[in-house]
């Protein structure tokens, strides 16, 4: 276990060193380069603390699980990490919670950096694969994969922004939005490592499906954490319709349903009713329901991973990451 943690930490170091070199070599004015470097430095420290970062780990682990060697996938992991950092920075701008390192620069500069990280730099990172003799057809497949995924993520994000203005959102629509917004991004992390490693479509699809299910499970945990993990829920303030809320609205009847609708309107202005919202979600069993859905996706991901027959020790590390994606108390807590 300690060896696995150390290997995860080392991967973060390798990928962020690669990205630092990529940004240093960019043909841009020095102040623009500094803008990108500032964000990379702040996120390097964050990534080292949170060494399980999927955008770093999944592409490298999947490549190693197929070929026995993670090294060739470094530019792909770099591209995935850039896309992730850009999307995360955009989220922070939209949610008005930029990290302290951005406070002196502001949201306009952050938006510009996010656009560059999302759109331009992943392609430049993938271009490094030419140096190791990757065929042009595979480079094009990877470039197309990133473009397709960004489009799907954007569609999911847009739907997420529209939900607060809709009267009714069904559980299926909420699930589909999560699949587009978060599942597709996680599928990319696994699929890109697999595409570089093999031409076998069964193996590629198995890893992509693993990543998709893992990403959905993680997003649902994130949604639960927002409501129950903190005093102030950003999702309630932003009027989001996350799966636990949609479940409660679909389950509660009569006065309780009406009251929850009133509280969700009030929660956009003030946090004073958040505890009452949580009480109504508990009455609907919405956290337990979400825990069930997370479990079902986690099990599907395990199944897809087993079907891909990963080599060890990468397979063990992938299973370890997946085991953490659960809302159920650990055995020792029960």
């Amino acid at each position, binding site marked *: 276990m300690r060896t696995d943690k150390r290997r995860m930490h080392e991967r973060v170091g390798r990928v962020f060193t690669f990205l630092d070199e990529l940004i240093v070599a960019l043909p841009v004015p020095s102040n623009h380069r500094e803008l990108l470097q500032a964000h990379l430095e702040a996120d390097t420290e964050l990534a080292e603390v949170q060494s399980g970062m999927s955008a770093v780990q999944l592409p490298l682990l999947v490549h190693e699980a197929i070929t026995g060697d993670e090294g060739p996938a470094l530019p792909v992991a770099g591209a995935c990490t850039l896309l992730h950092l850009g999307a995360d920075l955009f989220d922070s701008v939209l949610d008005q919670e930029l990290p302290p390192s951005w406070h002196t620069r502001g949201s306009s500069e952050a938006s510009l950096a996010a656009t560059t990280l999302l759109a331009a730099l992943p392609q430049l990172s993938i271009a490094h694969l030419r140096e190791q003799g990757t065929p042009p057809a595979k480079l094009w497949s990877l470039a197309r994969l990133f473009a397709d995924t960004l489009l799907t993520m954007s569609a999911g994000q847009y739907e997420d922004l529209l939900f607060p203005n809709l009267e009714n959102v069904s559980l299926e629509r909420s699930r589909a939005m999560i699949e587009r917004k978060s599942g597709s991004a996680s599928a990319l992390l696994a699929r890109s490592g697999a595409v570089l490693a093999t031409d076998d479509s069964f193996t590629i699809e198995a890893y992509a499906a693993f990543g998709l299910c893992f990403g959905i499970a993680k997003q649902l945990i994130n949604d639960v954490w927002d409501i129950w993990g903190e005093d102030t829920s950003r999702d309630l303030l932003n009027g989001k319709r996350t799966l636990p809320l949609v479940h409660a609205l679909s389950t509660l009847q009569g006065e309780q349903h009406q009251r929850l609708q009133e509280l969700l309107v009030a929660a956009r202005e003030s946090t004073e009713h958040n505890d009452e919202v949580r009480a109504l979600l508990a009455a609907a069993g919405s956290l337990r329901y979400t825990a069930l859905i997370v479990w079902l996706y986690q099990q599907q991901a395990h199944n897809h991973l087993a079907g891909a027959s990963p080599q060890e020790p990468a397979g063990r590390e992938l299973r370890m990451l997946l085991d953490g994606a659960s809302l159920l108390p650990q055995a020792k*807590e029960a």
Partner: protein
Amino acid sequence: MEEIRLEALKGLTILAIHDGQFRRGVMDDLEGTLRRYGYELTDQEMERLRRAQMDIAGWSDEDLARSLREREARVLTEEEERILSPEQFLRRRWRF
């Protein structure tokens, strides 16, 4: 332990999303609900599903929320606090 077949897991997920009666029944009467919906699981698959259902149904929402907070709670190091506030740090825990 034996994994549940992928097709069964997909079917259960679809029902849990689309069917209100299934959602209510699966927590209160797992085996009866699966029988009514025509599910045929092996003994090992049934045992795995039963354990998961007991794990989930055996906790209240309040217990699950408390357990999640305890699991994620940690004292940030000086280095971590310099990067993010404690609230931002925890919020980002599952975004990465």
